[in-house]
């Protein structure tokens, strides 16, 4: 393809496609108009023209599939030059459509059904919560569960048990705001005399059996203790709970979590609470390698309140996002045909108009 041909082909594409093409190639591409964007794309891909061309072909293919999914009557096909790349695709039915023959897409009514407040039930801990607490009696535990699954329950129960055994508990969180929230919450639960807080600029009840602090403070305490300066009650320290442990991967502050975990006294149990991450096993393996006891991993991916995804068009039309009511994990292509059609319409409308 010559530069001129490529330029013509790019000119015929909607601007949204160009932006997708520019992603990773051009910084701040969202600022440029169509013409400028094309120039930048050509410039940026001078080194790797085939890469740009193949990406472009893939995007065009994807777009044409989307157009095929849309009934011909509602939207006439825009003028697009003959694209040989699309012909083998057009003969093959899309996987989603294939799927659709067996199972019709969920209706909006079905999708919306079931909204409501569950009946008040006596609290019964989930199996994983019980499991985590049982394991914590023996050894260190890493918990990786979706947001809102009830990690706090595990933290509170573990704290109760440690305090019954007269051992000090340290609870760390990455943010001062979170520390403050937890301080209020735990003070209500355990009584104000039982709970202390240490942050960069606040010290209250520093001798209480349950101490809430930011991770940096705990790191500093451990350094001071190692330097032989202050007497933190590290001997009686029974449990260290680290909330939001996925901060381990924070570019600026992650190192503090590592330092804290490396220097955490070996007689203290560790309870790491983390949102869903891809490699919790790595963290458990790591802790097993550096701590006296093997570390247990509690991991589950099922949300306690099921999640459904929807698509709301700017004209206030609401449709399910996926063909299934729930989220089809691992199958991002199972889009609801209606959502697909509306979004294509949206891209069609907004795309070219912004380049003018």
């Amino acid at each position: 393809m010559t530069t001129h041909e490529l330029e013509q082909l790019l000119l015929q594409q909607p601007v949204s496609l160009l932006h997708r093409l520019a992603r990773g190639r051009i910084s701040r591409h969202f600022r440029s108009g169509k013409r400028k964007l094309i120039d930048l794309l050509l410039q940026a891909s001078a080194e790797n023209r085939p890469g740009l061309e193949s990406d472009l072909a893939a995007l065009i293919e994807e777009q044409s599939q989307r157009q095929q999914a849309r009934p011909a009557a509602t939207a006439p096909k825009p003028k697009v030059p003959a694209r040989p790349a699309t012909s083998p695709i057009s003969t093959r039915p899309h996987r989603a459509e294939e799927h659709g023959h067996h199972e019709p897409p969920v209706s909006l009514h079905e999708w919306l059904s079931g909204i409501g407040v569950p009946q008040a039930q006596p609290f019964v801990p989930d199996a994983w919560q019980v499991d985590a607490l049982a394991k914590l009696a023996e050894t260190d535990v890493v918990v990786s569960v979706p947001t809102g699954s009830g990690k706090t329950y595990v933290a509170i129960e573990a704290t109760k048990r440690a305090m019954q055994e007269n051992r000090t508990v340290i609870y760390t969180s990455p943010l001062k705001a979170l520390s403050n929230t937890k301080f209020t919450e735990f003070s209500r639960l355990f009584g104000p005399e039982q709970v202390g807080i240490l942050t960069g600029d606040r010290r209250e009840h520093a001798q209480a059996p349950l101490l809430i602090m930011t991770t940096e403070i705990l790191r500093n305490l451990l350094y001071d203790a190692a330097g032989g300066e202050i007497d933190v009650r590290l001997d009686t320290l029974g449990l260290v709970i680290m909330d939001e442990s996925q901060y381990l991967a924070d570019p600026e502050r992650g190192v503090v979590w590592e330092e804290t975990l490396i220097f955490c006294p070996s007689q203290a149990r560790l309870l790491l609470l983390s949102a869903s991450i891809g490699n919790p096993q790595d963290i458990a393996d790591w802790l097993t390698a550096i701590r006296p006891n093997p570390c247990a991993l509690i991991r589950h991916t099922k949300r306690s309140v099921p999640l459904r995804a929807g698509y709301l068009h700017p004209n206030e039309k609401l449709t399910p996002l996926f063909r299934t009511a729930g989220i089809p994990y691992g199958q991002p292509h199972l889009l609801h045909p209606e959502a697909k059609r509306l979004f294509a319409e949206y891209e069609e409308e907004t795309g070219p108009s912004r380049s003018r």
Partner: protein
Amino acid sequence: MPPSIHPVDLVATLRQRNLTPAIIFLTSRRACDEAMQSFERSQVTLPKAQQDQIARVLAQVTEQYPSIAEHPLIDTVQRIGVAAHHAGHLPSWKIAVEELMRTGSLDAVFATTTLAAGVDFPARTVVVTQSSIRKARDFTDLTASEIQQLAGRAGRRGKDLVGFAVITPSPYIDLTVLTKGLTGQPEAIHSQFVISYPMVLNLLKAHPREQIQSILAKSFAQFQLNQRTAVLETKLDGLRAEMEPFGPRVCSDWITQWQVFDQARKRKKPRGLGARQESPDVAARLHFLTPGRVVGLTRGRGIILRQYRSKGQHAPMVTLLRDGGSLNECPASIVTQVFDRTFDCEETSAYPWCTPQTLEQLTHHLLDLPPRLPILPILTHQNEEIPLDSSIIQTLGDFACPTCPSRQACQRDFPRASRVRQDIQRHMKSIQALQTSLWHRFQERIDVLERFGYLNATAQLTADGEWARLIRIDHSLLITELIRAEAFGAIDPPLLAAVMASIAHDDDRPGSFPRGSAGLVTLLFQVRKLAESLAPHEAPPMLRADVAALTERWVADQTLTWIGLARLTTMAEGDMFRLFARTIEFLSQLKTLKATHPSLAESADQAIAGMRRGVLEELP
């Protein structure tokens, strides 16, 4: 970019479908504020009961945090049941909004994505309007973890049977990023271990240098490096197996042997071919082939018009005027005889390389030439065979390869074997680098600290190192160097607070602020100079003069109220609060130097006391 649907319509639709309360994530603080403004103009009002509930909750929170009472948005929130929640707000206001959400009094909250990471308040529905967020200075796609963090706020345990994540498009949204994020696996996390100066000082305080390597080996960073090492090692095993058939042959290290022999052989070749391509007699004749010269060819005669070298091979070439008036470009070797006869030739720089008149004349001359012409005798140097470089002959002679029985096998296998061997060496080098990189970085830090005098030659803490290790914040080297340079000798608390604020502040959000005092300007100039001189060892902070001036004002003028301060600047209240909170944190580190720098610690203490008033006092 704001979403394409109007915020009022968005909330109305959610209400109508019974999808409230909802958290609506927008790209920027501005988008949140604009969404709120669009409600101010709308006619929506809540039923009285709900308004009362909001007022009740707000009154409760206000008891604890009085600054909420002054918030300009209170009336709007109460009237429409919608609020904004972003980092530009004061923490007390954010707490109020969170409390309102927890009690279910609000229908919707407009929030920026920063909310997803920290504070914990769920809703029935989460609305996502974007597929990318601003990080540093550029937009990047949301990761699967981030999308799931956002969506994870949907569905309150015990209050909802189902949660909803609703996507509504805004320009530049990429639906595939979101669908993949919703259905995919969250990303693996990677260690971000960096070795800072305070870390080095604190580790060396507690452990001798010999133990450091084993401590670093306990890091998650090293754990993940080891994982990479393991991958490389399996690859290495594979390569070693591939290397099996290329084991020792006649010579134990035949690959090197062959490589050297091959190189020696190759170096010999160009000598025979290269420099002297033309034969000796052509070379000798070249000097005489000037324009106007009559030459004899294998057939007929000609007159030279120009001499040149061919582009590619640099072969000697001539342009010839031949019998019959034709012009030819020929290799110089076509000339068999050089006659002792030349004609005048007026040369030009383009074809036919002479003026038309000359060409005409020469054509005539060529026809009129007598059949016999005196031949110019040209001496040709019969160049004797240049002997091969003696050293190479020698080495070639040393090689057994030419006569070796495995020569053919060696020649055949060499390309593959040498490639595999290179890979093996490369892998071994990377493995070694992975194993020692942390320790190397640590040693680099030790070297710097030694040069500045915080460590002695045996990597033990000096007197300066002993106190410097207590400064465990960003830009620690700059701060400790400032202290050693006595920049803070007998410094006033406001000035100290101002300098620390400019070091602590790392946000480049623009704003317009009051000017600092003359003393502050001079001091900041010195700080900047020092920071620049430290740049090779520590990235310099932004050192914004305007935030320094703002802090100075706040500490120096104790009658200044928070509202009054906010009027002096365009900085958002939340940003001001964070600036001060961070400054207090930095100052409290200076406070720990009580033993060695009593006057500085005292000054820091006073600065903290001066800063902690108004809104800053009300919140921890």
